[in-house]
């Protein structure tokens, strides 16, 4: 075998050396590129999220770390905090701010326990201005402790945990780049309603409940179908093995609050009653007795509200509506409906008797529920077709109601029932007209007046006062009443005028182009942003014109064609609409304290086909 020459050997040696340095350099380059990429995209929000500023996403990935990172920049905007596990999210910031006269940040963390909570509280009390601190000691707090671990989604921020910053930030800089890629991908599909990847509201720190709060809720059967978990509730066994540690954490938080002059409020959030059976009675009693010794607390865990699944959206999470009621109870706000037995201030004095009565929950979900048949009419004329009925049919039906002793209720009354708990008449019925035809003024108004009944007419803003032509076209139109006539009816106290949108109930054949708006839903190909702007402008115009025209507030909208979705309902919520109507058949089911029961309410659509028997059946 030929031996390599000395020169060749030297060359090899040099090339090996070069290769090794190239290896090291390339490796370092890739590592640096990885760190730069992760640092810039920042899927966990620990490096200032310089490009996206998308804390909602970051917090979804790890609320513990990302929220502290957010607060490091923004804590001057807040002077109060609420903290605890995910159920803490449902104490709405607006109510907290109002009652405490402060500016709250919801520092809740999913899957947390009092060990994380303690560490986080001590950190913010030491480093931020904290006037008020609300700690949610959820019933589950007695059964788990020290749960934070070092996986990416649950690590506490190094500032809170005292972890070596180099290791902490190093871990997130060298994280799997798919986390960053995923964030970029998600950014392109970000939407108005929260999606599974961005569940937080950046400014409040709470879950973004825009969608949750817009879900129409009504009859129990419908709810159990939509939320089958309550129909077949999971059975679990949870031992309360961490009572001492949990209570000790509360004590430490309290001590720190005293030292820093912060006001501490301890609450125990509502639980669905079936989940209470996961725990041993003796252990729950022990937990709450021990807790009361350390800090008096407001206990909302078990009450008649716990019996109604409609106040919960999964096994353990209650709705914002219940959070609003809890705060109203704590602050004695009489203007808000709160169930009698909801919330007890537990002190060392009454703790014994409280835990004794703890399991005596009684109540029936029908107690806070009312069923109201809402009738839907359109045009009235001698020449009938489908939804157009004769004046005679109308009068017969009204007389039937009168004979049977029905009392018409208005939407103001129904809203007051839900929000303030004001009673409704025993035999309540509600009469509505869609579109705003002149025949309503000509025929219906006098008949209603005659029988002492009330009704609500939902007008299409663009058609008010149109008697001959469809908008600016030459197409003939069924005449619609004008604001003068509307005001006369409103002033009489018989009629309420509400919105059927300004111009989102267009008639296709009379519109130019293909893309007309027959209903309130987003058009195909329309961007979400455009849609929200369009709907906002449309409703605002409708509301303004009606309020100017008749001098009464617009609070209700009837969905054109009955079509709606979560997005439309959420946008209308943001515009202050308090009730909406669908054309799904059935009685409207109103639940005291649950505003969602006013959304997309069911109605009975009266047509020429409606027999007397059917009519009686509907209203009985």
């Amino acid at each position, binding site marked *: 075998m030929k031996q390599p020459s000395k020169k060749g050997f030297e060359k090899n040696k040099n090339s090996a050396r070069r290769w090794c340095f190239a290896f090291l350099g390339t490796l370092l380059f890739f590592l640096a590129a990885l760190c730069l990429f992760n640092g810039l995209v920042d899927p966990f929000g620990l490096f200032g999220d310089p490009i996206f500023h998308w804390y909602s996403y970051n917090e979804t*990935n790890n609320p513990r770390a990302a929220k502290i990172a957010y607060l490091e920049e923004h804590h001057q905007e807040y002077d109060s905090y609420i903290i605890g596990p*995910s159920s803490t999210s449902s104490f709405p910031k607006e109510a907290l701010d109002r009652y405490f006269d402060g500016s709250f940040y919801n520092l809740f963390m*999913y899957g947390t326990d009092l060990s994380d909570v303690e560490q986080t509280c001590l950190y913010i009390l030491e480093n931020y201005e904290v006037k008020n601190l609300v700690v949610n000691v959820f019933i589950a707090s007695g059964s788990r402790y020290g749960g934070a671990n070092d996986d990416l989604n649950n690590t506490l921020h190094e500032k809170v945990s005292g972890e070596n910053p180099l290791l902490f930030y190093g871990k997130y800089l060298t994280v799997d780049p798919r986390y960053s890629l995923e964030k970029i991908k998600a950014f392109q599909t970000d939407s108005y309603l929260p999606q*599974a990847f961005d569940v937080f509201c950046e400014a409040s720190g709470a879950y973004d409940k825009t969608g949750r709060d817009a879900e129409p809720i009504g009859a129990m059967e419908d709810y159990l179908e939509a939320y089958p978990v309550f129909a077949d509730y999971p059975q679990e066994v949870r031992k309360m093995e961490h009572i001492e540690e949990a209570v000790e954490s509360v004590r430490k938080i309290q001590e720190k609050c005293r030292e820093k002059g912060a006001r501490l409020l301890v609450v125990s959030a509502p639980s669905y009653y079936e989940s209470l059976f996961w725990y041993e009675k003796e252990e729950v009693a022990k937990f709450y007795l021990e807790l009361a010794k350390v800090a008096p607390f407001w206990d909302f865990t078990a009450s008649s509200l716990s019996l109604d699944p409609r106040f919960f959206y999964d096994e353990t999470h209650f709705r914002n509506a219940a959070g609003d009621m809890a705060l109203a109870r704590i602050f004695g706000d009489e203007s808000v409906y709160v169930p009698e037995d909801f919330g007890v201030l537990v002190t060392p004095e009454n703790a014994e008797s409280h835990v004794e009565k703890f399991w005596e929950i009684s109540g029936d979900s029908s107690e806070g529920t009312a069923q109201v048949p809402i009738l839907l009419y359109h045009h009235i004329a001698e020449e009938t077709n489908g939804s157009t009925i004769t004046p005679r049919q109308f009068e017969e039906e009204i007389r039937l109601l009168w004979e049977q002793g029905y009392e018409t209720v208005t939407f103001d009354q129904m809203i007051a029932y839900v929000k303030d708990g004001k009673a409704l008449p025993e035999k309540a019925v509600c009469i509505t007209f869609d579109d705003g035809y002149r025949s309503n003024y000509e025929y219906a108004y006098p008949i209603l007046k005659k029988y002492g009944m009330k009704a609500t007419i939902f007008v299409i803003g663009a058609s008010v006062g149109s008697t001959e032509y469809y908008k600016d076209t030459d197409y003939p139109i069924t005449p619609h009443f004008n604001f003068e006539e509307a005001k006369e009816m409103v002033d009489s106290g018989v009629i309420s005028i509400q919105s059927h949108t300004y111009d989102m109930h267009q008639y296709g054949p009379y519109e130019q182009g293909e893309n007309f708006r027959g209903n309130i839903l987003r058009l195909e190909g329309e961007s979400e942003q455009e849609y929200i702007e369009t709907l906002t402008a449309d409703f605002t115009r409708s509301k303004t014109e009606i309020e100017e025209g008749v001098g009464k507030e617009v609070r209700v909208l009837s969905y054109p064609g009955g079509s709606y979705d979560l997005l439309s309902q959420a946008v209308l919520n943001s515009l202050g609409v308090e009730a909406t109507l669908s054309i799904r058949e059935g009685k409207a089911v109103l639940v005291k304290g649950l505003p969602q029961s006013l959304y997309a309410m069911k109605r009975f659509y009266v047509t020429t086909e409606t027999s007397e028997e059917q009519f009686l059946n509907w209203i009985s």
Partner: protein
Amino acid sequence: MSLFSLAFVLFVAGGSLLYYLLPKKFQWGVLLALSWGFYLSLGLEAMGYLLFVTASSYGAALALQHVNQYGKALSKEERAAQGPKIKNRKRLIAFLLLLGNFGLLFFVKYWDFTASVAGAWLGVQFPAFGLVAPLGISYYMFQSAGYVIDVYRGKHEAQRNFLKYALFVSFFPQITQGPIGRYDALAPQLLKGRGFSFENLKAGLQLVLWGCLKKLVIADRAGVVADRVFGDSSAYGGAMLALGVLFYCIQLYCDFSGGIEIIRGVARIFGVTLAENFKRPIFAVSLTDFWRRWHITLGAWMKDYLFYPISLSKPLLKFGKFCRKKIGGRVGKILPTAVPTFLIYFVIGIWHGANWKYIVFGLYNGVLITSGLLLEPWFSSLREKLSISRESRGMRLFGMARTGLLVFFGRYITRAKDLSTGLSMLWKTVRHPIPSQLWNGSLLSLGLSEWDLLVVGLGVLVLLFLEFLEEKGHGITEKLEEKSFFVQWLFLAVELFIVLFLGVFRGEYIAAEFIYQQF
């Protein structure tokens, strides 16, 4: 400490730094300290086993050496007189050592299985101990046993320094999964002092990179499919099961050979060249050829320390004579070789573990290879009649396909949780293939995304292509050396990129939308 942990990377980096910074005479000491430290990280108990095997083989070899020297010192006449006695003594020492060591191995690895099987036959309840064999025990035991037998045979001297010998037994890169080294090839390299060399570092890193690519990028992905299919074999049709087995074959090869390459690479960084353990088994033309290319050092060990002693043992020699006389012909000639051959493959099967499936796997290999040997005369006359050359391309391809298929079927048995599951999967593949599952989207239910499947597919194709070139005699590494530095760098960068971004970040990661749904 896993080979794929950051801890191991730091361990090797720190260890090699220390190794090259210290004076040459201390270098082997560093290696021993690293090796024992590495093994200690597996637990004290494991360390106890290692020390027992090291000390017993060390002592046995010294004793054998002593007897050897005693024999050499004798005069011709004395030797003639004492010969049998000396031989017997040596045999006794070797026997005791092998009995002690393999007895221990049997006890920790096979006792419970044997007890349950024998107990069932005899209707007696033998106690089971539930012992867990420490990592790598069969590797370092084979390595040290080979050393003792070599000393017995006078192939080389025994090592007098216990610590130096201990390093040979426990060299950390190879201790957990081989390759099984030979004392005369390995020990001098371990004990020699050497200065730092970029060539070694480069060669080592190249091996490590390539191994990582096979293991992290290909094997770990393929393993997901194999786990899914073997984990719930009743859920799939036969074609999907076959696909699962194919993925298992890919996983096994890339995992094992990739691991060995990393081991060889790490050793190389310390200037030590370990024996090759794989030589492109996909190109094997017969099962015998396969075992010469797959887990080479195990096969070679079996050949040197089991096959020859058995073949040359008195009973076998007598048996050979008997065959030639009584049976005669070709069969009579081949039968004496066939018997030890069968035994070897049977033992290789059992070496894999204590389970019926491995016994059957051993029998499967043994029967196929032995019958191949016995039928070879008939095959060669058939080839002659058809005038096919054994070396022709068609014949080689046929051989490869046949071997591949036999190995493939064998994997049904070794990977399934037990023998009956493996056999029923095999049956299903033949009788109920439901091939539509291969293209109706079921593929995506096997735990890998389209992207991951693509990575495995492309990875295997590239691997096959490169191995094909190697098989043809084009050394890839050498060819690459001739290219410009830029090309070399490009190759390195691509490899590094793939290892980092498709290998290190290969596992489960939780997309934000799956973390928490209860908002």
